[in-house]
């Protein structure tokens, strides 16, 4: 057991850094569970309305630019890879490399957001908006409007999480670059990564639900 008594990162009520890391990791996983359930309400609503308005939903889905969703998937998956590599670098004590990889991930997050913004712009222009603002009118019944309600809720909440994730990666990346972490203690790097992977994980489900089926 690595004695972390000297390490300033050790809080007074933990007996060792190892135990503290375990606690922090568990806490993060619990937090991620709440995030998953936060999205679950939206996915359940999506499931119900897709079941009720199957035709309208597939029609509306076909109207989306699938290639943008696809490219965004590639971008986000790749950013997850760089975050994972960043953790690996931090574990080996290479703070600079770790920070650099995190910045690279933020860059990919920006690409993701930019593509998303282009898509949103297009939806605004063509009146594909939620609920009462839906004016596209190509799809009979309420299904089209509901699809775009859920589209904006799900992608909007996800984009919000991407923003938070980028902020977290930025803060931790800078600290990492400045050498705040060591092979013994780099839990924050790991937790920031976990958050980013969750954002990726959710997108992996959003992509087929919104764009493909």
């Amino acid at each position, binding site marked *: 057991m690595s004695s972390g008594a000297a390490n300033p990162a050790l809080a007074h009520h933990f007996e060792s850094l190892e135990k503290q890391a375990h606690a922090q990791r568990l806490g993060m*996983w619990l937090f991620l569970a709440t995030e*998953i359930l936060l999205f679950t309400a939206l996915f359940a609503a999506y499931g119900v309305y897709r079941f009720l308005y199957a035709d309208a939903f597939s029609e509306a889905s076909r109207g989306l630019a699938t290639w943008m969703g696809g490219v965004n998937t590639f971008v986000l998956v790749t950013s997850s890879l760089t975050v994972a590599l960043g953790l690996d670098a931090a574990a080996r004590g290479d703070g600079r490399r770790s920070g650099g990889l995190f910045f690279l991930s933020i860059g990919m997050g920006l690409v993701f957001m930019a593509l998303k913004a282009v898509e949103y712009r297009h939806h605004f222009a063509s009146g594909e908006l939620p609920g009462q603002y839906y004016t596209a009118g190509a799809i009979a019944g309420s299904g089209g409007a509901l699809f775009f309600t859920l589209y904006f809720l799900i992608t909007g909440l996800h984009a919000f999480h991407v923003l938070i994730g980028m902020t977290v990666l930025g803060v931790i990346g800078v600290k990492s670059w400045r050498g705040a972490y060591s092979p013994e203690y780099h839990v924050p790097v790991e937790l920031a990564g976990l958050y980013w*992977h969750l954002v990726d994980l959710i997108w992996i489900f959003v992509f087929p639900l919104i764009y*493909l089926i």
Partner: protein
Amino acid sequence: MSASHASTPARHGHAAHSHVARYLRVWLALMVLTALTWGLSRLHIPGGAGVAVALAIASVKGGLVALFFMHLYDQRGANRLVFLTSLVFVALLIGLTLLDNATRFPLANPPDAGTSPRQVRDAILGSQPPATPHPASH
């Protein structure tokens, strides 16, 4: 505590073999699966099969991310349990709400949704009410 041969900081530190190769393999698999699900969607597999395939691929991808990028593969039991439990509740909420919409009195669903005019007529006028479950099934 017994499960603590986990990704402890110390272990990360002197792990001679880093995870880089594993990460790259997983990344490659994710890219291939993304391309696959994209390609399959262009075939427009009819009915629920397309949905099922797309969700199955997404689940595999999600599993890869959770296991390897998020290190559930080599972590303590508690973290895995938290993640699995949350998935159980995801399934629970989605499953039971959908079951309701799928089996309720058809007219209790939105009128311009899945209920065709024929169903509407049958439900209003048909002397036989729509199928309801047998008490024996419980």
